[in-house]
């Protein structure tokens, strides 16, 4: 056998002993070939990266071209000629007294979140012997943190405290406390004994401060969205309204849809009951009909309930969540891979099915929970069709997709192109950051779903 036919193996023969001494890979000429291959791969990857990122970079560039001094429409050059300006961004917030407290609230929320996170981390370090102390400190930290938040909010809003607004604030404070309690439980709860007894269950390392900041920050964002709903501000360019609408819809959808999807997929995966196959087949058949077919019917159904135009936001939440049970496939696939013996041993120990679901499967299903939340949260940001149909003609109730689509594709809005770019950048930034932060879970969900079909 000549050497060419065994390209990557080099055989060194010891002449004296007459035996093969060494079989080693890749001689010098071989590694040269390897290097060439790698270089060409690098070149391809760099070109691809440029193609992939270019539109986004262009988008950012064009968003800095002033629509006042230069041209707000589409032009055939990329970089602004009259210098970089923030006019487009300014326009988005123009005429609103909304920005000061939107911006500052987020800053304050970030601050409070950081303080709280630090506090919880410190409290956790205390060790398990002084548990009462820990609880006390947690409650204290929560009260201080949320108190700070509310106080600053009220101060900065400069609210003349009428009875109505005071009532609303008390309500939101209550919501805050409940949310805070849940968060505290979530962070400080010891893993249950049952869980630790399961072989192979790894106790989750909770040293990841960044993750907690994100979670807490999200919580403040929820509260902020609630406040924003209650105190509904009007803005001149409506952009912030759209943004707030989308955020509200996305947050509610994320929560409700996740609960629904997880319940359905858990029931179909782990429980055996009459009609299970029937449900799966019916969902399969219903899923083959195109979604837009039902648009008119849904519109009239919602109209009957008063959930169109001015009630479009709850309407959208309802639409996104009502049928979300049909998207159970990926998480069912995940539940299918968790060994059944876990359930059985817990059942023998006397746990009810509900307890099994909550205490055993849910902690193990963390990746898929996060995946579901991520998907449910991201979907409303991109939905144009239903949102435009439901909110038809009622501009304050658009979501960002509908509003921005009109800025580029409706002729009345000539010269809004750069403002679309600016608005798009502001939408894309937080979503992209969130996505990249949780990328790992997304990959897990997508690959799992593809493999299991």
């Amino acid at each position, binding site marked *: 056998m000549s050497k060419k036919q065994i*390209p990557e*193996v080099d055989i060194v023969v010891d002449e004296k002993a007459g035996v093969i001494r060494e079989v080693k890979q890749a001689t010098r000429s071989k590694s040269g070939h*390897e290097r060439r*291959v*790698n270089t060409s*791969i690098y070149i391809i*990857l760099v070109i*691809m*990266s440029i193609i*992939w*990122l270019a*539109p*986004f970079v*262009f*988008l950012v560039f064009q968003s800095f071209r002033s629509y006042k001094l230069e041209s707000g429409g*589409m*032009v*055939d*050059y990329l970089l602004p000629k009259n210098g970089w300006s923030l006019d487009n961004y300014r326009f988005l917030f123009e005429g609103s007294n909304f920005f000061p407290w939107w911006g500052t609230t987020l800053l304050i929320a970030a601050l409070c979140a950081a303080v709280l996170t630090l506090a919880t981390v410190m409290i956790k370090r205390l060790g398990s012997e002084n548990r009462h102390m820990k609880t006390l400190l947690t409650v204290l930290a929560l009260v201080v943190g949320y108190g700070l938040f509310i106080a600053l909010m009220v101060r900065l809003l400069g609210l003349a405290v009428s009875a109505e607004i005071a009532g609303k604030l008390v309500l939101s404070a209550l919501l805050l406390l409940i949310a805070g309690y849940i968060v505290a439980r979530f962070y400080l709860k010891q893993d249950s004994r049952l869980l630790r007894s399961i072989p192979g269950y790894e106790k989750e390392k909770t040293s990841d401060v960044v993750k907690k900041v994100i979670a807490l920050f999200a919580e403040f964002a929820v509260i902020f969205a609630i406040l924003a709903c209650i105190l509904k501000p009007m803005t001149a360019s409506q952009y912030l309204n759209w943004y707030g609408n989308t955020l509200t819809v996305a947050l509610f959808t994320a929560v409700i849809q996740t609960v629904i999807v997880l*319940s*359905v997929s*858990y*029931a179909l995966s782990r*429980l055996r009951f009459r009609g*299970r196959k029937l*449900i799966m087949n*019916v969902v399969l058949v*219903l899923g*083959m*009909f*195109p979604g*837009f*077919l*039902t648009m*008119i*019917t849904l519109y009239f*159904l919602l109209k009957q309930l008063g959930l169109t135009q001015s009630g479009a936001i709850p309407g959208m939440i309802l639409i996104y969540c*009502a049928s*979300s*049970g*049909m998207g159970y496939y990926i998480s069912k696939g995940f539940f*299918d891979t968790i*060994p059944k013996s876990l359930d059985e041993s817990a059942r023998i120990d006397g746990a009810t*099915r*509900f*307890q099994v679901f909550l205490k055993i499967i849910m902690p193990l299903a963390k990746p898929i929970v996060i995946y579901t939340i991520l998907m449910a949260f991201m979907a409303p940001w*991109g939905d*144009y*069709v239903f949102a435009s149909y439901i909110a038809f003609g009622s501009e304050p109730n658009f979501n960002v997709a509908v509003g*921005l689509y009109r800025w580029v594709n409706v002729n009345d809005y000539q010269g809004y192109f750069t403002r679309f770019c600016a608005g*798009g950048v502001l939408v*894309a930034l937080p979503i992209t950051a969130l*996505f*990249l932060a949780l990328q790992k879970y997304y*990959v897990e969900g997508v*690959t799992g779903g*593809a*493999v*299991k*079909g």
Partner: protein
Amino acid sequence: MTDLEYLKLSKPAKLIFRIHQFFKNLPGMAWNGLKGLGLAIARLFGGLGKSVADLVTTFKDGDWKTRLSYLIMGFGSAARGQWGRGLLFFLFQTVFNVYMFMPNAAFSGCYYLGKLSTLGTVETYKEGRRTVYGDNSFFILLYGVLTIFFILAFIYTWRLNVKQNRISEQILKSGHRLKSTRDDVKSLADEQFHKTLLALPTLGVLIFTALPILFMILVAFTNFDSTHQPPGKLFTWVGWDNFHTLLSTDTASYGNTFSQVLLWTLIWAFFATFLNYFLGMLVAIMINKKGIKLKKMWRTILVMTIAIPQFVSLLYVSKMFAADGLINGALMRWGWISSPLPFWTDPHWARVTIIVINVWIGIPYLMLIATGILMNIPADLYESARIDGANAFQMYQKITLPYMLFVTGPYLLTSFTGNINNFNVIFLLSGGKPLSLELSGNAGYTDLLITWLYKMTVNDTNYKLAAVMGILVFVVTAVINLIVYNMIPSVKNEEDFQ
């Protein structure tokens, strides 16, 4: 042909044989399907007969509590101490009765049911300046369907109520204790946990998906369009006319346009699926190759197109390729072309542009999926192949590709049907344009069935044809699913991977 002969065939011959076999088996399959349907119907009637017989015997053998339950639902349960169940049954019956026979006869279930056959006869008319509203066909149809749902649910519940009595009687006779309401509530977290989990989602799907779909299927058989729009006008049943309008090739019909749009839809779905599949796999292989550094960075860069909401990225890209957009502008400034390239105005250019841009959107998904699977391929397979002297392409052809295809077979199918319904890419990029006089019904050269459906609903308010189109999309999807599932050898057993 024996198995041995089959194995001797070459790859294409095998495929041809398989397809041939499929079509040869088609009549058999159809016959089996019919037989299955017949059996199911027979079983249904058998079950019905049994039910009726059971009802009679229950009535004959039962005590007075049971007999009264035939009239007042839940009475038996309540009288035997299961007041929770009894109350629920009774509540359901009350709601049903109120809905069906509301004192205000104009809006009861019976009213809608009675009008369902004509969809309303009283026209809306003007009396001086005042508009007097007649029947509203839309609500008659919608609530008529809802009423039928409700009646079926009622019959089922009533039957359940009777059965409950019989079972209770038997349990009491054998000297056991009946479940109390407390037990019932408790069992909702345990034996009956699936009911707790599924109740709300099922209700949501029934009202917001199943009911609208059924409604639209029925609309396909009416003349509900812009000239028959309630509440001003009535619409009525027209039978198969709409299917005829959409499918026949008369000059006034949409048949030619439909076949063109369908063809493009299939071509699009084919390219969108397979081009992305192979290119994505290629990219994944390149990134995963040993010795390539910064793997995570390359992946993150590509994944950006998934992360950024499509309405931002696709709208921007579509404007980039427009006649007065960046790309044409740059090319003209550099003097490479004298007039803008017709990216969105020429049918062929538009179609190719869309497919290419979709690669930009689609590769990252496939890259992520392929990365996960590629890592699972045992490394010793490649090792031994290398020792046997295989080159990179042979290894790809003999190891990577079969493995990928086997594992992602079902995914390819869902992705193909998903692309048939891929609304966003077409709508945001071209909006179906370029339009043409050769196509009827406002369709453009890049319209998919689904975007055409959208246009019909929103722009033309031609609901009847939109409904027909929806049904046809369903048929296309279902047929493709059926064929492919019969061709894929590994129709997976659900319990396999548990």
